[in-house]
């Protein structure tokens, strides 16, 4: 199984899931979204979690993002046992350990790009000057140094997602968690944003990407596929310490085609 013992001397895994079960009550019916998922993600990895709707990938995303807690099983995030945490501690974990990127960007509409990037630091003890400096650095990293004063509705979709990316990395979290980050973007912009993720990964960040598109998953070093709440496939494309793959449009389409046939 993929959670097999971490080699001695290796870095602490960013994600360690052991037989995680998540079930909801919907009225009288017990719905089991995850039926015992085990997964280990090491620092520097770039993982794509794939699955059709109903496969449990949204639940997976909520649990990995500490927005929800498992019903059963163990979850260590950067060495912290999440199941033992209360609500306040969970928000602290989200603040320090995770950078979120959402499908719908989720920027605060009436706040400038820079202020949006500063947002996570509002809940840390960071001085206003330091917040500003770090937000500007993060915006520069995503290539939007000159857009700090713009409101989200003055930016294109790709730019908004890059602001969201800057917000995700500004706190220097061990994990960047992206939920369908290109779902609302056209192909060209998607490629631009995905190259940004590749670049971040090359800089050493751990990225977990949730998607249902094969050409997006092609940017990852490792592809995990979920179906009916179970991992049905866990394929490593590139070694953890190797640079992330750089799919061309053509190879991505071919990849999608071949996967589509086999699935």
């Amino acid at each position, binding site marked *: 199984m993929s959670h097999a013992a971490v080699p001695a001397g290796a870095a602490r895994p960013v994600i360690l899931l052991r037989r995680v079960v998540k079930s909801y009550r919907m009225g009288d019916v017990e719905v089991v979204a995850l039926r015992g998922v085990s997964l280990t993600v090491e620092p520097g990895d770039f993982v794509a979690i794939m699955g059709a709707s109903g496969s449990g990938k949204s639940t997976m995303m*909520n649990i990995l*993002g500490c*927005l*929800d807690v498992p019903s059963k099983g163990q979850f260590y995030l950067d060495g912290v046992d999440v199941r033992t945490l209360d*609500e*306040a501690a969970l*928000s*602290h974990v*989200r*603040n*320090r350990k995770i950078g*979120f990127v*959402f499908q719908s960007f*989720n*920027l*605060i*509409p*009436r*706040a400038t790009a820079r202020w949006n990037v500063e*947002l*996570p630091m*509002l*809940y*840390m003890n960071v001085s*206003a000057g330091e917040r500003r400096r770090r937000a500007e650095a993060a915006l520069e990293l995503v290539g939007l140094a000159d857009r700090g004063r713009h409101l989200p509705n003055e930016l294109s979709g790709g730019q908004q997602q890059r602001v969201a990316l800057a*917000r995700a990395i500004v706190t220097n979290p061990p994990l960047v968690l992206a939920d369908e980050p290109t779902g609302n973007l056209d192909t060209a912009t998607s490629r631009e944003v995905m190259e940004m993720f590749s670049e971040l990964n090359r800089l050493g960040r751990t990225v977990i990407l949730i998607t249902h598109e094969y050409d997006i998953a092609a940017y990852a070093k490792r592809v995990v596929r979920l179906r009916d709440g179970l991992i049905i496939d866990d394929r490593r494309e590139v070694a953890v310490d190797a640079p992330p793959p750089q799919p061309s449009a053509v190879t991505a389409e071919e990849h999608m085609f071949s996967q589509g046939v086999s699935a």
Partner: protein
Amino acid sequence: MTGLDTLRSAWHGINANLLRSGLTVLGLMIGVSAVIILLAVGTGSSAAVASRINALGTNTITVLSTGRFGRGPSTGGTQVRTANLTTQSVQAIEQHSQAPDVASVSPVVTTSETATYGSASYSTSVTGTTPDYLAAQDYTVSAGSTITQADVTSRKRVALIGQTVASNLFSTGQNALGQTIRLGSASFEIIGVLAAKGSSGGSTNQDSVVIAPYTAVQDELTGYAPFTELLVQAKSTASLNSAATEVENILAAETDTTVANLPFSVINEGTLLTTAQSTSSTFTTLLGAVAAISLLVGGIGVMNIMLVNVTERTREIGIRKAVGAPKSAILAQFLAEAVLLSLIGGGGGVLFGLIGTRFKIEGVTPVLAGYSIPLAFGIAICVGVFFGLYPANRAASLRPIDALRYE
């Protein structure tokens, strides 16, 4: 999240929909200014009542010749005493051994007469009394001289006239002093003009008066009828009640009856003042209560707007929670927003209130009650906290997954 950041976020929230925030603030502003203005009107009117009663003389006791309702003179015994206020009554009260708290007693006879001077005539009340009456009633002579005890003894036909009488009989610039006016068929020489006093209690004009020695008034106008009333001045406001008791005892002895059956009405002006003050304080409380209701309505407006805000910004709350905002920070942000709204509303209301109290309202000059500003402002803040708490708590309790999914 520091206090400043919380405040900034709250300000952002208020700025996000200026019209809506403005209307909410307006509601509170009206509430706060209503409290301040209405309390000022209440205080102003009670001050006006108090000053009118003060003008009557707060340390005076009036003995009216008419008995209290249902009480006639005692008819028991062999002797039926007519219950009249006479010179004997005055002299009895003047015995200081029996009435140590009485400063002076003035007999009063009143009648209504038409005063004429040349072709001008004016219907006025004529008061026949002694010089003490002027002091007890706070009358001062603004021109000429006052009447003296000698005038009373010698039954001199001299008179003091009030401002209203003077202006009705004499043209402006004309000197009334030394002129002789006719009161009915009698002639009186004007030796003084009284300073203006204003109306008492709104009904009687205290400047529409002619004051003359009671002896002369009895000689010329009323005949030797008993006195209409006795005006007793106590030595001080504090001794008013004991003076009233003394007067009652003396008059009871004079008329061979008990205090309970006294055929006169002894009216203590102090009681009148207390009654009037309690009436006007009830009035002030009532006004304050009405204003407090409008403040409450303003508070409900704050709550309403905050609930709308929370619903409208559910997604923002989700984002903030996802990036690590703890429950307390969300609570603080929305509570700060509600309090900031009420601070602005309270501040504006105080300003409006201060402006509003500068105008005369329904004939009452508002007197700004010092306590009303901190009171109204404080209530506004409390209203903000109270009505902001529920929406803020609702925001803080949202689950981030649900909040993020909210469309």
